[in-house]
């Protein structure tokens, strides 16, 4: 019995039901003599109407509980695997209720579609377990484990790196001097413009801001002390290190990481090269040699920035500003600044290489390693700087 939509609306009661048609399908249920029922499906049984069809077919059992259900498909014009899935579910529901189910008008094409469904496969557990949402405590624990593992790996890398340094010291031919020079250019020479610009502006800002505070006291000339001491002792090494971490630490991690992904590192090992000596040592050495010089340049540019403010805005002469700057500094300050920046360079280049060597997988891992190289380098710079602050305070 085929009912159109308005007819269904009029005859909602009893066993007769015509579902609202989503993709142009219709359904009707009639009682048959002997406790049976007949379900007539017609139109399109497809993915577009699946939700509706499933709901309607599930609703059949609320309407009737027959001994035998005949499903008449002769009016079905279109059946896809989604429709077949809905029929399959109906079969399962019938079996669960002990209802005998038979099809009418199930052509070979429809049978073929029904055959596509792999019921065992649907029931099988997925190979990848559903994502488990860890509780706060679990997350905390896992994070700590990851941190501990990371520290362990960094220390292990440090050991291997020192061993590689030892091998290179015993056999200096292993070290590729041309590579060291190349990286010195990349880290140092190519970094000059940005380090110079940032430092110059930093000196300018510092001098300007402090002049506003010092002017009322007539202490204008001490702007030179402030800029020189702050830069040489603290800000010069830190600013330079941060810029080098962003420019070169990330580049080291990306370069080694990509080589790792492309199996180039394995190829090196196979050909008898030591990847640490070959890839990491030139980078670290170049950084340690160049970054202190870069820091001196940064100090100089910042003092120049201060000088510009002093001369243009505070009525100081260039001579007196420079004189005051020289008076405020001693060689010890400059040397400890350079020692600091050499240490920072070691940390930046070392962690950059380590993150690169840790890369497993593909492009995403290289990206993660690059980010991690910069973030870890910044963290290590600050930690090392704090240690320097305390040690230098007590030492001198």
């Amino acid at each position, binding site marked *: 019995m085929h009912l159109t939509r308005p007819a269904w609306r009029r005859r909602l009661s009893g066993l007769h039901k015509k579902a609202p048609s989503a993709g142009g399908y219709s359904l009707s249920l009639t009682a048959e003599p002997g406790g049976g029922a007949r379900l007539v499906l017609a139109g399109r049984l497809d993915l577009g109407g699946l939700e509706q069809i499933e709901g309607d077919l599930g609703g059949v059992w609320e309407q009737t509980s027959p001994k035998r259900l005949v499903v008449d498909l002769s009016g079905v014009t279109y059946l896809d695997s989604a429709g077949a899935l809905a029929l399959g579910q109906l079969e399962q529901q019938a079996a669960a209720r002990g209802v005998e189910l038979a099809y009418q008008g199930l052509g070979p094409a429809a049978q073929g579609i029904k055959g596509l469904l792999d019921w065992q496969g649907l029931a099988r557990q997925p190979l990848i377990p559903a994502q488990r949402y860890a509780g706060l405590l679990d997350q905390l624990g896992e994070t700590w484990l990851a941190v501990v593992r990371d520290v362990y790996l960094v220390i292990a890398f440090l050991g291997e790196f020192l061993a590689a340094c030892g091998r290179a010291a015993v056999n200096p031919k292993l070290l590729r001097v041309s590579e060291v020079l190349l990286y010195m250019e990349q880290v140092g020479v190519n970094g000059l413009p940005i380090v110079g610009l940032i430092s110059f502006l930093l000196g300018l800002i510092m001098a300007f801001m402090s002049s506003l505070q010092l002017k009322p006291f007539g202490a204008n000339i001490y702007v030179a002390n402030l800029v020189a001491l702050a830069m040489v002792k603290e800000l010069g090494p830190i600013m330079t290190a941060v810029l080098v971490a962003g420019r070169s630490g990330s580049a080291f991690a990306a370069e080694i990481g990509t*080589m790792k992904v492309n*199996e*180039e590192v*394995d*190829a090196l*090992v*196979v*050909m*008898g090269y*030591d990847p640490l000596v070959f890839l990491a040592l030139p980078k670290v050495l170049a950084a340690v040699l160049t970054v202190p010089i870069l820091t001196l340049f940064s100090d100089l540019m910042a003092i120049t920035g201060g000088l510009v403010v002093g001369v243009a805005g505070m009525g100081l002469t260039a001579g007196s500003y420079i004189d005051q700057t020289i008076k405020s500094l001693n060689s010890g300050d400059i040397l400890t600044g350079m020692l600091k920046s050499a240490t920072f360079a070691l940390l930046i280049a070392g962690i950059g290489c380590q993150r690169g060597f840790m890369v497993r997988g593909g492009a995403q891992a290289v990206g993660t390693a690059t980010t991690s190289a910069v973030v870890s380098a910044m963290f290590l710079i600050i930690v090392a700087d704090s240690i320097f602050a305390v040690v230098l305070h007590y030492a001198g």
Partner: protein
Amino acid sequence: MDDIIELIDVHKSFGKQKVLDGLSLKVPRGRTTVIIGLSGGGKSVVLKHMIGLIKPDQGQVLVAGQDITQLDDRELNQARRRFGMLFQDAALFDSMNVGDNVAFPLREHSKLNEKDIMKLVTEKLAMVGLTGAEVKMPSQLSGGMRKRAGLARAIALEPEIILFDEPTTGLDPLLTDAINRLIKDTQERLNITAVVISHDLAGAYRIAHNIAMLYQGRIVASGTPDEIRASQDPVVQQFIHGRAEGPIEVL
């Protein structure tokens, strides 16, 4: 016939995943052995064990009678001199041109002067059909050319053993055939031992003296191509006939 490489009861796990489970394999000297098996089944891991890139959790890896799992780095480097390896994507150094890539192992391990090195590079590139490609950068090469350049680098030091990690994967049928022929020619001309991992069966039949099938971390069958073809083992049968149904669960 003596075996130049022998893996004895090798076990290897990565995390919780057991990749090799008591694998034993003999590679006869001066022959081509092809290891076939499913993608992700640990074939590359077997190859990397042979050359000491990966150390087994348990078991022995004998190269010319010497257990390389017991060697320190220096001795291992010495043992690696016997090997050349062609990586899956050739692993050419992107920052160097093709000539420098091929010259790379020569510069490290031979005492030749630069002129002789360049002569050898030209010769090796000619062997793989890449005459005149010295000045090209790896990024300018097609997949097939990269593999050939990688092979030229692998044979630069005239090793006793060459390991091929999926040399034909991702190439078109013509290039696949060309690379297979190149492997066969190289093996015959230099009389070396070749170990090839592959899931290309047609190629395996063509180049192999021996075929070994890796499944679930073990060698389940090994023999001449004819013996493999005639094998009654259901796993081997399923693999060589490329059927999704059978003892190997594909999905």
